[in-house]
């Protein structure tokens, strides 16, 4: 949109980038909206597939994107656009009201169908994936909706819960979920706690990001260190401070 007059906020250049050519330390480059998909794909590569024997699709948490892009509202808008197009699925992971998991639809469908090979629940799950997941972008479903809109019977709903595609949320409503994701949640929470402790136990409760990425991970941390760092920065469990030696992560006491 071309403007006849410039916006006042542009004149004061709210997004100041003082560094011309020199960049102190290691800084993450500012990316535009089109690059949210590429940062999603980058985060997906950090997900350890071997750990789960390739049974799980690659899961990324929504707040990990906040650690890469500074404008959260823009990230939210882009994600909603992708969800509406049907490229991306969002899940309520259960351990935190604000932690949403993101999975590419194609990945999800592929893995679920592979997992359902040869089981009795296979046809119901296939029908569910086709009819519901493709059409509806909701995170949860109520009994009314399942029975009337999507025409599933009670026994079929039980089959879906058994297969892991639906998880109980409340009496008569279910979350959309990823089958066999319990292991993921367990390792994730343990790893997050371990990484947070590493930051907390450092001198002054702060550590350089570059340094902690290089550290040897103990047995509690199963995921890539960078995966956890993006998570704790995005969830604001640590403060990310730019310094001349790179980004500093400081533990936030709340």
């Amino acid at each position, binding site marked *: 949109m071309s403007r006849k*007059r410039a*916006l*006042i*906020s542009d*004149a*004061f250049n*709210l997004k100041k980038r003082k560094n011309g050519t020199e960049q102190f330390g290691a800084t993450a480059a500012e990316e535009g909206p089109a690059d949210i998909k590429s940062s999603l794909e980058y985060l997906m590569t950090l997900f350890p597939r071997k750990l789960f024997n390739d049974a799980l699709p690659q899961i990324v948490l929504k707040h990990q994107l*906040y650690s890469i892009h*500074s*404008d*959260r*509202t*823009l*990230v*939210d808008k882009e994600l909603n656009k992708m969800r509406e197009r049907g490229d991306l699925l969002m899940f*309520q992971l259960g351990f935190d*009201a604000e932690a949403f998991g993101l999975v590419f639809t194609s990945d999800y469908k592929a893995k679920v169908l592979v997992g359902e090979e040869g089981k009795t629940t296979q046809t119901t799950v296939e029908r569910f994936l086709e009819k519901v997941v493709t059409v509806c972008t*909701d*995170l*949860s*479903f*109520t009994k009314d909706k399942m029975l009337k809109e999507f025409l599933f019977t009670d026994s079929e709903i039980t089959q879906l819960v058994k297969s892991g595609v639906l998880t109980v*949320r*409340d009496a008569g*409503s279910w979350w959309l979920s990823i089958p066999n994701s319990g292991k993921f949640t367990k390792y994730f929470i343990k790893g997050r706690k371990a990484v947070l402790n590493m930051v907390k136990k450092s001198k002054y409760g702060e550590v350089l990001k570059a340094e902690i990425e290089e550290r040897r991970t103990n047995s509690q941390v199963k995921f890539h260190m960078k995966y956890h760092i993006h998570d704790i920065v995005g969830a*604001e469990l640590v403060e990310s401070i730019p310094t001349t030696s790179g980004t500093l992560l400081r533990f936030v006491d*709340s």
Partner: protein
Amino acid sequence: MLGFLTARRAGLDDPLRLRRAESTRRVLGLQLNPDRDVDRIHGNGINTIDIEAVEGRYMLSGGADGVIVIYDLENFSGKLQYTCKAVCTIGRSSRYVHKFSVETVQWYPYDTGMFVSSSFDKTMKVWDTETLKPAEVFQFEGNVYCHHLSPIARKHSLIAVGTTNPKIQLCDLKSGSRIHILQGHRAEVLSVRWSPRYEHILATASADSKVKVWDVRRASGSLFTLDQHNGDKSKASSEAVNTAHNGRVNGLCFTGDGLYLLTTGTDDRMRLWNSATGENTLVNYGKVCNESRKRLQFTVSRGCSPEFVFVPCGSSVAVYTLHTGELVTMLRGHYNNVDCCEFHPDYQVSSSDLSPNNLGAQAVKFVLLLFCCCLVKHSACVDRIGSS
């Protein structure tokens, strides 16, 4: 900046645009002013401040010890170094002083002859500024968390009062009656705010996580309840509906034009709502630290081009851009927790007060940029713009 000045001189731009540009520039350059200070009268923390709307000259402050002080912000001494003097005080020695901490103070919107204060001693007092005696005392059954007088009301003179009782009382200044009650909340009401756009619209926030918008002319209940998921039940973690936050809602603020409403809650989130439809605009401010068990007094700038929100956050004030949610800066300068902020449209003063954990801590520190009001009237010439 020169571009704006030239355009104003040549008549290419509206005068308002230059004023907005200058206000925005000042807000972006806000810093602690080492030259201005305020008289230290309060021994304990300050819970609330209010700057009068008429001239922007007098400031009221209410403290945790029940003391109320009025300061004169104007600097007639001609010197740069200046301490704002306290004009008068309702101290512990006064017969009519509040027994416990003063939670809210507010000037009468039309002149400084009167102000209203409410306190944890379960009373709300309407004071005469001349004699410093209460003209009217309203008694309540529970602690009064907040009250608010509509800044634009012409047809009514109601004071909305939020107490530990879930019912909101409307007290009439003219007749002294308090029969009008708004029912709907299920827990204590932590904050009430009249809309600066429509004199009959009132927003209330409560510890039951709900924010309700009322039209006081209606006989039936609230107009609508704000829902953080915008009706999309699938996102909520349980079947409980229509909550504005996932914890207590303790801060409410309308924007200057009354089109948007900001709410803060103890779930460490701040949300921006469209005040006409009640829709959550889904602007993501990130984690807005909120540990207050009472009302959180925060403020929105008026007259800047991207509007800014000033929220007390620990011992500093966080400044966010209103519509994009970006954290612009943190204003540091206080030694202890900041309790409330107020925005002065001419001076871009963001006065923040604090509650000390130990006695004898700072009273008020001003963050001030000097400003000359004739900026808008004379096109090119700006007498003195000093920033520190």
